[in-house]
Structures are given as C-alpha cells and as structure tokens.
C-alpha cells in the first residue's frame, strides 16, 4: 500500500460508508473493498472497547462491590487466557451450556450481586448509551487472540444443544419463509455486496465465526455474537430474540462444531 512521500506523511483512516472507487467490473469492486478493509484494519476501534472492558473487569461494582476478576469462564476462577476459545460449554454451577455473554451475566449476578434484569438490560449500545457487555466481551475475546477455537462437544447437554441448534438452523418461518440456511447454506454467495459464509462448511466457518465479537462500522460499536443472531432474526422478520436465550446458545454450539480449529481473530472489524 503506497504512502504519501511528504516528510510528515498523514494517512487519515476515513471510516466512510462510501467505497473509494466504484468500478464497473465486479473484480475491481471486490479489490477495492479489500483495500478499504486493509486501510481500516490498522486502527480497529475495537481496541477502545477492549481497553474499557479491561477496566470494567477489574473495577469493583454492584451491591457486593466486587470486580469480575474471580469470574469462572470455564478454565477456573479468573483464568482469562484461552477461556473464550473454549466457549460455549457446559457449566456445572448453573447446570447449563453457556456462551461468553451468558457467562458474563452469571458472574455479574453472582459475584457483583447485580440484579439479573439489570445485568441484561442494556446488552447492545446505542448512541449515548454504551453497553458494558460489548466492552467486556471484547476484552475477554481478545485474551484468546490467535488461539484455535476448541468449543467442547462432549457433555450430554452440549450434544443436546447441538441437535437443537441444528434444527433451529434449518427452521423456516415468518412472512419471508427464512431460515438461517436461506443465507448461510451455500458457498460463494452474497447478500447485496456482503459475502455470506456457508456455516456448515468448516472452510468458511473457521474463518468467519472466529471474527466475532467485532467492531461493526455500520453500527459504530463492537457487536457480539448475541447481537449478530438478534440482527439475523431481525432481517428474517422474526421478533426480538431474548438476550442469551437458549436458542442463541444452541445455535452457537451448532456453529462452533464447524468453526472449531479456526484461529480466533476477535475482536474483529466489519462493515
């Protein structure tokens, strides 16, 4: 990528919605999109969320005035490195399969004493209303950066979640007859200009599933896997999915089976 040759060269990353060069040929469009992504990659605003998440992790809060530093994300109390890489998984203390966000909710409730309704009240940030969950998820995910996804599929409840997730993946419903498979069932397809991974193909799943959570430029915020599913259902003309619902975790277990061994690149950067 060429830089300007002035002594005080300035390259301002303009996170604009428009593409730098719109050419007729599809190949050129694709190349320009890639170049735009490379320009953005150096300054991922997810860094800001990671930093805030670390602060939230270490700050005592809630009625119990405790930090989250004793939170057990699957590898033991307070173990951060590699924990995200092994989610979702079964937890004996809650006797259910949980993903990252569901587990963060558990820790906020049990360790910090925060009311469950309060802990799930604002999962997705809006302008002027930042979400703690997005920052915490960014921080914890970042602690598994570069590691291979290895979500377990051994415990009977993990296996059940997989079977449920599988059914949900193919479940067609609503006025548009959409299921997850409607968009995510074939290789090499895209919706408008957004490429779609075939989620039951490890080749695609390993590359894409592991980029969540990610800073979404169009959203101006880090968005998590819970938001991704919520957003999918929005487009599928379904109602709002409950935050950390059993359906969401079942779908994540299903997807993780195909995404396992993929390298975790979270928090990522997307349109």
């Amino acid at each position, binding site marked *: 990528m060429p830089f300007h040759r002035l002594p*005080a060269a*300035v*390259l*301002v990353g*303009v996170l604009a919605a428009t593409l730098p060069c719109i050419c007729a040929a599809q190949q050129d469009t694709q190349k320009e999109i890639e170049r735009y992504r490379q320009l953005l990659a150096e*300054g*991922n605003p997810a860094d800001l969320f990671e930093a805030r998440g670390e602060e939230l992790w270490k700050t005592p809060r809630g009625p119990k005035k405790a930090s989250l530093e004793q939170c057990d994300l699957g590898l033991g109390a307070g173990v951060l490195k590699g924990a995200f890489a092994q989610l979702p998984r079964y937890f004996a203390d809650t006797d259910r399969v949980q993903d990252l966000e569901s587990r963060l909710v558990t820790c906020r409730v049990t360790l910090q004493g925060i009311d469950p309704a309060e802990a799930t009240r604002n999962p997705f940030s809006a*302008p002027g209303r930042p979400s703690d969950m997005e920052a915490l998820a960014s921080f914890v995910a970042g602690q598994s950066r570069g590691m291979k996804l290895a979500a377990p599929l051994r415990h009977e409840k993990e296996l059940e979640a997989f079977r449920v997730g599988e059914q949900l993946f193919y479940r067609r419903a609503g006025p548009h007859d959409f299921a997850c498979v409607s968009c995510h069932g074939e290789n090499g397809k895209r919706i408008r200009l957004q490429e779609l991974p075939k989620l039951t193909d490890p080749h695609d799943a390993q590359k894409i599933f592991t980029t969540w959570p990610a800073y979404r430029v169009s959203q101006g915020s880090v968005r998590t896997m819970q938001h991704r599913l919520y957003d999918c259902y929005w487009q599928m003309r379904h109602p709002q999915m409950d935050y950390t619902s059993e359906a969401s975790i079942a779908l994540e277990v299903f997807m993780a089976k195909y995404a396992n061994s993929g390298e975790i690149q979270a928090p990522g950067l997307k349109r």
Partner: protein
Amino acid sequence: MADPMRIRASMAGDKVEVRVLMSHEMETGLRKDASGALVPAHFIQNVTVTHAGKTVLSAQWGTSISKNPFMHFRFKGGKPGEKVTISWVDNKGERRSDEAVISGG
C-alpha cells in the same frame, strides 16, 4: 472526559511512526435520531501532535471524519524513549490529551 486515545509510537527507519485511535462520536449534525430530531453536531475540530515542545502535526477536521477516528502518520526528529503528545479539541470545547513513549521499533 472522553475515553483515552490508544497511541502507538515506534521507530520506522529514521522516522517516528505514530498510530492513534481516538474515541469520539463525531456527529455530523445531519443525523436524525429515532424520534426524528436532529442529533446536534459534535466533532473534533483541531488535532495537534507535539514532540519536544514542537508541533509536528496540526489538523483541522470537519464532519466528514467518521466516528472513532484513526490516524496514522510519520515525523522526523524523534528518538526511542521520548514522548509524543496528541491533543484534540471539539466543537463543544471539550478536549483530550494523551501521550505515548516512542518505542525502539
């Protein structure tokens, strides 16, 4: 005060290479909220980068710069261990200043 900037400054040959990510809403003043009301403009207007008391970069920004701006630039004359200070002022008069130490490379 806004969230701290994330700054990385390192040597690249004989120049100092700086990458800075700023946390700012950068509202253009043209966006409407859910109720249809215009969200007031709130954006960084001036950015100044100093090193050893000298200004090495000065920028005047407008509403075309997006949310959470990222800037990447190089300047001559810095050495490892020295400080680079980045400051911004926005149209509401809010300001933020952070510094970073230049690493070896």
